[in-house]
């Protein structure tokens, strides 16, 4: 599998898949990531997967309100704003999933009584939104210098009515799928940090999706590594 890399002044892109048409079940869309693009937050990143794009900003470790402070670790907050409209229940539930993933990975015990806030803005949604949000949040946390015990990534799988597995589905594939499974995996041993699923699937299919996601996460982590190496090679 070859990766095509173009080095622009600011855009760091890597194609983690063959170019169109996708081989069924096996490939991820084109990735791109840009870090440190916002001036106000302590860390920021923009992550693109195909046409899905999410912008993330991280503030922290910063002051926290006394009502929200935790005496022995940092208070992690995630705010997800949809592209149009006010945030609703779906955003709240995604925020909670992302927050649980981040809490498992961020070393909050090093900064007690502080707050770390991750703000995510959906710029365009063309499928696998939660996975893109997770990736953007991870890159933004790294950019902000928040201490973490591992990196994490999100991968989405869709199962269509015949049982074919598609990784990183587009919006159309998601609508036609019988089940959509999103996993968050960590970088040390590719363990499962978070999973959320929607639809009908069997036990064996769950294991198959998980294995495919673990294999795909290698690409994502390799892309993270190259993206960060390029960033530090400039200084």
């Amino acid at each position, binding site marked *: 599998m070859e990766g095509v890399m173009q080095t622009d002044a600011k855009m760091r892109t890597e194609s983690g898949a063959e170019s169109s048409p996708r081989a069924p079940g*096996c490939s991820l869309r084109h990735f791109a990531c840009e870090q440190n693009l916002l001036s106000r937050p302590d*860390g920021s990143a923009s992550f693109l997967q195909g046409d899905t794009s999410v912008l993330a900003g991280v503030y922290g*470790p910063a002051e926290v309100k006394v009502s929200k402070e935790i005496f022995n670790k940092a208070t992690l907050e995630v705010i997800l704003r949809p592209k149009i409209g006010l945030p609703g229940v779906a955003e709240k539930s995604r925020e909670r999933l992302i927050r649980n993933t981040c809490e498992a990975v961020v070393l909050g015990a090093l900064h007690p*009584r502080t707050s770390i806030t991750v703000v995510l803005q959906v710029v365009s949604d063309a499928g696998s939104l939660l996975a893109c949000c997770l990736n953007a949040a991870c890159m933004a946390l790294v950019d*902000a210098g928040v201490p*973490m*015990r591992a990196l994490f990534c999100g991968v989405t799988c869709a199962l269509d009515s015949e049982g074919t597995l598609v990784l990183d589905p587009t919006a159309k594939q998601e609508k036609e799928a019988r089940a959509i499974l999103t996993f968050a995996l960590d*970088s040390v041993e590719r363990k499962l940090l978070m999973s959320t699923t929607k639809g009908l699937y069997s036990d064996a299919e769950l294991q198959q999706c998980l294995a495919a996601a673990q294999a795909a996460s*290698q*690409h994502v982590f390799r892309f993270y590594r190259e993206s960060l190496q390029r960033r530090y090679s400039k200084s």
Partner: protein
Amino acid sequence: MAGVVAVAAESLAGGRARAARTVLDQVVLPGEELLLPEQEDAEGPGGTGERPLRLNAGVRARVRVVCGPGLRRCGDRLLVTKCGRLRYKEPGGSGGGGGVYWVDSQQKRYVPVKGDHVIGIVTAKSGDIFKVDVGGSEPASLSYLAFEGATKRNRPNVQVGDLIYGQFVVANKDMEPEMVCIDSCGRANGMGVIGQDGLLFKVTLGLIRKLLAPDCEILQEVGKLYPLEIVFGMNGRIWVKAKTIQQTLILANILEACEHMTADQRKQIFSRLAES
């Protein structure tokens, strides 16, 4: 599923820790584990269980290694917690063995560290202490007696909104940070209230460290341009003052831009300014 990916031989820290020595000056990512030199010997050639016979088996000289920012101790190994370049400093002098390992990362947010000299802004006066904003998660406290020549009768002239240059005496994750404007001998040593006028601006922490490195040419070149007064705070704040407002603004812009410019671009800009 089998055709998914020709899994590349390298795995991202997939359970295999690398020796710290081999990764020096390379970019390391959070989650990687690093082996310290003495442990590599224990792993042995191939680690198949063959070890050289030692006469004093069981007694191994331990070297004390200091774990700097960005690294944590995790059992016998070092766990990387921030992304950046791994650096190492040899132990200087006779005693201290092992040296220091740390990760050079780019960050904007400051976390108070004991002994750091910082520029703070006084935000409140309450009783005997001043509350000073240093850019961390909590305002630091500064006692009014912590100035040179200050006594209970002779209070220092500090108002809300003043700039203070001081150092931390207490700075850990569990307590509120405390700073003082005198050194251990009771002398100010350059610390205290920063004078009138001038401009305070914020840069990244990495740039401050770069500018304060012993062999930094940027400062020397800037000094040749205009006469100036400059104060660097390790919390990413720089205060600069030149003769006119225009010169001050030019200096502030140059220092902010230094982060992204290469040495050649910098020299071009300096030569253009020197002419005008």
